């Protein structure tokens, strides 16, 4: 009996192994290694790496660039997430209705998602260029002076935010569109017979029924706000004066430009912690408010 049970267990573990190997090799081991590395100093040929305890974390607290970058990322997340989700919902409701050339409109909303971020960044680089860029050409025809959009610390983050919203909204729209099409049209008809306005129907029926989609999209949007930094490589490299740098881009710079992998590990641990707290919070607090069918 005992033998049979242990055979069962071996069988089970063998079935789990392929997935487990990948998870351990590419997720758990790197995470733990990063955590370990954050307690050591950066070694080089002369000075080998040594255990420094929380020294890296102490430095982090006093690191002005880190706080600047965190601030940027909070602004970036707080604007891109709600605006792109709201836009996505609006576009989905619009293209879900009766509309001439519906598929053309749907496709054009979705196109930004299909394009690689690097290509998108190059397109927008042309829009934002001072004097010769599309925006300046249009504004100059109204007699407005040209502006170096990406060179001005006051406008650069806004420019990055606009690109991200433009790219993400179409992607999220697809999820909302799919969810909207599972809603029975009879629900709307029943509401219309009761005299519900379109807004009332949206507020009391459609939006609550879309909550599972909203939660999914929200999680994606938050993750993206921390991990989508491709455009920075093309457009600004985090500048000017870190005005457009985001946390992940800063980690990349520290690790591969300044070659301080120990401090980069410390930053990574902070990023992971922040994401973990957000994820737990979402599932604990929002899950209760979501109606799943």
């Amino acid at each position, binding site marked *: 009996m005992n033998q049979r049970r242990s055979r069962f267990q071996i069988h089970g573990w063998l079935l789990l192994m392929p997935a487990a190997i990948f998870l351990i090799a590419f997720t758990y081991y790197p995470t733990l290694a990063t955590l370990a590395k954050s307690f050591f100093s950066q070694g080089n040929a002369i000075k080998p790496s040594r255990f420094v305890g929380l020294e890296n974390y102490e430095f982090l607290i006093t690191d002005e660039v880190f706080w600047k970058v965190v601030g940027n990322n909070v602004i970036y997340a707080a604007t891109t997430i709600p605006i792109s989700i709201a836009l996505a919902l609006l576009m989905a409701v619009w293209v879900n209705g009766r509309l001439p050339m519906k598929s053309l409109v749907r496709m054009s909303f979705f196109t930004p998602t299909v394009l690689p971020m690097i290509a998108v960044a190059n397109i927008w680089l042309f829009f934002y260029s001072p004097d010769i860029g599309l925006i300046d050409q249009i504004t100059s025809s109204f007699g407005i002076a040209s502006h170096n959009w990406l060179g001005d610390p006051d406008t650069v983050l806004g420019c990055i935010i606009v690109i991200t919203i433009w790219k993400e909204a179409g992607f999220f729209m697809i999820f909302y569109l799919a969810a909207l099409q599972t809603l029975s049209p009879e629900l709307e008809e*029943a509401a219309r*017979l009761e005299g519900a306005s379109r807004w009332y129907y949206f507020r009391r029926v459609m939006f609550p029924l879309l909550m599972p989609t909203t939660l999914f999209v929200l999680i994606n949007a938050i993750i993206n706000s921390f991990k989508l930094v491709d455009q920075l490589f093309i457009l600004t490299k985090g500048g000017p004066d870190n005005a457009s740098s985001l946390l992940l881009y800063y980690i990349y710079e520290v690790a591969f430009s300044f070659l301080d992998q120990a401090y980069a590990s410390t930053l990574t641990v902070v990023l992971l912690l922040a994401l973990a707290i957000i994820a737990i919070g979402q599932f604990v607090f929002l899950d209760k408010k979501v109606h799943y069918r």
Partner: protein
Amino acid sequence: MSAIELCGITKRWGDTVAVRDVSFKVEQGTFAVLLGPSGCGKSTSLRMIAGLEDISDGQLLIGDVDMTTAQPAERKLSMVFQSYALFPHLDVRENILFGLKIRKIPAAEQEIRLTRVAELVGLSALLERKPAQLSGGQRQRVALARAFIAENPICLMDEPLSNLDAKLRHEMRIEIRALQQRLQTTVVYVTHDQAEAMSMADKVILIREGQIEQEGTPDELYNKPATTFVAAFVGTPPMNLIDPKKMGQIPALTDTSDGSPILGVRPENITLVTEGGLESELLSADYLGADTIITARIGQEELLIRAAGRVNVLKPRPARIRWQKEDVHFFDRNSGKRTDRTKAVDF
């Protein structure tokens, strides 16, 4: 004053005509059934009354007021949908009160009406449940409660029982009818099930290919079908429609032979006899418990016979059958319309 009056209502989608020049009246407090096979335009007609579908041509009067282009909410009517259209994220209470909250009825009155309606349909114990936690019959009751709480004079029902099993369907049929009579609501009810129509309706409007085939009480449709289509659609099993010319050598069934009409006899009006009548061959029997449906053949024509109790037809055998002349209907061979010129004779 009629509760609802349709005058030459037509519905077109591009080149296809779903409903063609339909006119009928439904009196206050009447249970009217729109009956017909799938795709005949009965649901479209109902949706035009509700205002969920635009009317291409014609005029719609509700309580003598022209409502042809009015918004659904202005028409003061409730509707029960085939899928019930309950809001899955709201509990039973909120589902039922949905319309009252939109119209901002005072909370105290909402409660009074809710208690009354919930009691009426037997949902009082289930008000906190979500639709997913209810059985099909209970969901149906929620949909009815939501329709009746509005206290509108008119209630439209679009195949409300088609998602229920046979036993429950029968129970709900009785319940809906009882509710309608108690509340004196005017009901327009769409179904393709003729048994439902026969048992519930004060008035049946039989629709075929977007046009009214016959309009009348269940009795009239059953006893005086206007066309062969009505004759074949109403009653289970349907009326036998036979061509006397194809029955071979038989005694005269009619007083004349001019026009040679189609002859209709209901299976329940044919009896097996030991002598006299017509000679036939019994082919098979379908035992249903209380009675047996027998398939018989005379010449080239097959007909169905409903016989009480159990009749065995293990292999084809000859038998004599007969019917009374009062039970015979005649229809014009070409138009399919009822004709009373020809008279049946006993044989």
